């Protein structure tokens, strides 16, 4: 066993490509970005890496996810981890991984970080004299941090886009909505604006990202408690990748992806067990995404339907480059159609 304490900083692109699927959990208490965590979970698979910080309720926040062949997704606000001043026992494996991929903050770095935190409100673009205006607006808009109903909060109106990340859009308080109906509808706010929003308590995300125009990516979205969810990403034709969606068996998925013609990658966590899951608009959906979706379907529920684009399946499972015959392939029919026979599978 080894011991650890103090503040550490992950080095950029911490990589551990074990080449095989392996999950390591370490029970250790630490604080990152103001949140208390009870452990760290590291998963490596086929050249990919994911590091998550475990919360007391069993959920986790992702620091780094890098398994889709593109640039890794890193939540910068979680780069610093503070194990506190009391030494904690950790495994040798975890300690060796930490010292190989992170470094303890020096006194100079700690002082710099303190100064940065004190100056946060005075970031470039906010003049000294306007601090009170910033506080006045956001204290009211977010009810001094107590706002939970963010319905239409940052929705736009057709071609008028008033919320601009870094200038007009600078929320003062963390956002953990209970209701997020049309919260970012027609929005052009980028990934960095959405990533800090905690949806884990949210029950209504209908139209939350409908006609989303903020970029190609959306971050990890925790929809485990959602009970009302119509057209969540509908008509977001520029959306290519949703890093992850946490669902539960009661999360309704009807109409989520209507018009998502550009969607290539999506990953799920949890069990999909509600009717009319429709990916018919997603003609570019990758094989990895189709496999992930099917592998998260409930084994036990009956009479439910899921629809895929036949174009996507024919391309994803094609037997040779350009054959576009995937829906006739044994891989598709034996490994997926033949296994999940409690679901009606429609190819549109």
């Amino acid at each position, binding site marked *: 066993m080894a011991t650890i304490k103090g503040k550490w900083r992950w080095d950029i692109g911490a990589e551990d490509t074990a080449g095989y699927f392996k999950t390591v959990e370490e029970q250790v208490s630490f604080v990152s970005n103001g949140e208390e965590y009870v452990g760290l979970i590291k998963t490596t698979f086929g050249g990919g890496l994911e590091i998550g910080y475990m919360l007391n309720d069993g959920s986790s926040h992702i620091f780094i996810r890098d398994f889709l062949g593109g640039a890794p997704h890193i939540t910068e606000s979680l780069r610093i981890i503070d194990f506190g001043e009391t030494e904690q026992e950790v495994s040798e494996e975890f300690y060796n991984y930490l010292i190989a991929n992170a470094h303890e903050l020096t006194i100079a770095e700690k002082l710099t970080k303190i100064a940065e935190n004190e100056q946060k409100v005075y970031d470039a673009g906010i003049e000294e004299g306007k601090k009170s205006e910033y506080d006045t607006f956001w204290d009211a808009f977010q009810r001094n941090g107590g706002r939970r109903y963010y319905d239409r909060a940052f929705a736009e109106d057709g071609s008028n886009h008033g919320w601009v990340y870094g200038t007009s859009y600078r929320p003062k308080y963390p956002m953990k909505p209970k209701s997020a109906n*049309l919260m970012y509808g027609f929005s052009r706010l980028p990934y960095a604006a959405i990533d800090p929003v905690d949806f884990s308590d949210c029950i209504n995300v209908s139209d939350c990202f409908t006609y989303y125009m903020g970029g190609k990516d959306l971050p990890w979205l925790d929809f485990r408690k959602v009970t009302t969810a119509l057209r969540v990403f509908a008509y977001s034709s520029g959306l290519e990748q949703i890093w992850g969606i946490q669902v539960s068996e009661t999360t309704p998925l009807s109409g989520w992806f209507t018009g998502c013609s550009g969607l290539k990658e999506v990953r799920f966590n949890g069990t999909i067990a509600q009717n009319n899951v429709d990916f018919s608009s997603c003609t570019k959906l990758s094989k990895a995404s189709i496999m992930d979706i099917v592998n998260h379907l409930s084994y036990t529920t009956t009479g439910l339907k899921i629809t895929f684009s036949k174009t996507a399946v024919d391309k994803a499972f094609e037997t040779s480059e350009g054959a576009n015959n995937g829906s006739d392939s044994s891989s598709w029919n034996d490994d997926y159609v033949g296994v999940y026979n409690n679901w009606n599978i429609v190819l549109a």
Partner: protein
Amino acid sequence: MIKETITRIKLTATEGMILTDGESYGRVVYLASGDEGEKWYEITEEEYNKTLEDNNHEII
């Protein structure tokens, strides 16, 4: 150990037609085990395209 052979019915739309059960639309339907497919019927592609137009809506 129990070994079973599970039969799954596959419906394929005729050329120029689309399968529907009134909710979902597709060219191929793999019915869940035990489902005989009574709910499914064919419509023309024109009827399908009209349905898509009717279902497009404005967010209020």
